[in-house]
């Protein structure tokens, strides 16, 4: 009876999965560039960023078309409005990955402790992004809720890194600029965690109709 609408929703779902995959790809590239000395990974990042922006436009257009043509209600309305909100967060994740990529060449001499913590933090925030996309694909409310609570882990890493950087600046003031850059990278990963949290909250809304207050 509504096969055309269902087909269009399936396309929307596919596009969302692809955009999610692009976000995972861009931050895993950033992580590799951070871990390995191989800076070739940095080259692919801006291409992935452009691809994410293009995807955002495509999905936005599709959602507006669906709102206009189908005047969706109930679960359909929640799915489409959540998609519109989620792509903004996905696009921001892409931007922040690009921001990190820009800084990486300037933080060659990282203090060991902060470096280890940063890797852990990066892995934790990337997992949040992967899980939020999986939660969307599987309509998995429990996984989405786990993403929301995992944000505390990323926030804790950020605090630890901040303390470490303060110590580093005190003991080694001449490398202050590098330390600040490192703090910015940590902040970007912290923001990526926040965006993954937003995505997860919209997944919960899309499935249950309840969005977290505040």
């Amino acid at each position, binding site marked *: *009876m*509504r096969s055309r*609408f269902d087909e269009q929703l399936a396309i929307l779902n596919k596009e969302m999965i692809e955009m999610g995959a692009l976000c995972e790809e861009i931050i895993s590239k950033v992580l590799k560039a951070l871990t390995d000395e191989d800076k070739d990974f940095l080259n692919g990042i801006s291409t992935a960023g452009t691809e994410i922006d293009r995807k955002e436009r495509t999905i936005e257009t599709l959602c507006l078309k669906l709102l206009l043509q189908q*005047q*969706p*209600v*109930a*679960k*359909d*309305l*929640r799915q489409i409005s959540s998609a519109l909100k989620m792509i903004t967060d996905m696009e921001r994740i892409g931007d922040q990955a690009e921001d990190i990529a820009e800084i990486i060449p300037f933080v060659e001499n990282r203090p060991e402790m902060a470096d280890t913590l940063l890797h852990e933090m990066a892995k934790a925030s990337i997992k949040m992004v992967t899980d939020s996309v999986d939660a969307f694909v599987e309509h998995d409310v429990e996984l989405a809720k786990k993403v929301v609570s995992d944000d505390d882990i990323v926030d804790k890493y950020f605090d630890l890194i901040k303390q470490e950087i303060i110590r580093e600046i005190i003991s080694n003031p001449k490398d202050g600029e590098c330390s600040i850059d490192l703090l910015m990278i940590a902040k970007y990963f912290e923001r990526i965690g926040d965006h993954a949290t937003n995505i997860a909250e919209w997944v919960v809304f899309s499935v*249950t*109709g*309840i969005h977290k207050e505040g």
Partner: protein
Amino acid sequence: MSNIITVKDMCLWYGEHQALKDINIDIPSKSITAFIGPSGCGKSTFLKSLNRMNDLIPSVKITGDVKYNGKNIFGSSVDVNELRREIGMVFQKPNPFPMSIYDNVAYGPRTHGVKSKAKLDDIVEQSLKDAAIWEEVKDRLKKNALGLSGGQQQRLCIARALAVKPAVLLMDEPTSALDPISTSKIEELTIKLKENYTIIMVTHNMQQAVRISDQTAFFLLGELVEYGNTETLFSTPKDKRTEDYITGRFG
């Protein structure tokens, strides 16, 4: 907000066929309540029960309670004409009487004993103003109402219903025979009317229910499946049958 109509365990049969099953619903006053559901689900039957229009069908049997302002509408002391004055009705197809615009609106008050010309003039003017058609017809009140457009005729019918000062207006798909502009005028009018009246409306246009109603009731196969705040019902329906119907999976 107090409830002007309360219905408890109401059932209705047309002969052997049960058309309404255990309906329980409270309708708040001065608000718009929409009844939705596929054809034959009982929504119009239920609407018509609220001012006892179904009394006109001999095989109808009704059980349960329907209270208007706390009083059972099927009680022996109830004057059906008075009930229908207080609970007016507007039909799907505009049905002006084949007489002048003025006489259409004055018909009800005259039937209820208003004779003074000045008083009738006042009622006609006020009712036509309330129905948002005064400006369009004030210079041709003596002209035949059948010369008006469909949308104007429907607003005239609303004016006619308002002329006897009802508290509740029942509307059975009031815009289904109208073009989009007339539809939008009736919708605007309905929203304005709820300041002073309680509106209960059957509609097949779900977007209309979303646009103008405060509460929505979904009927299916004679049952009231779900009733609640319109925004909630259309964004997060509780019953799967409601979800399936409003998203166009059946009906």
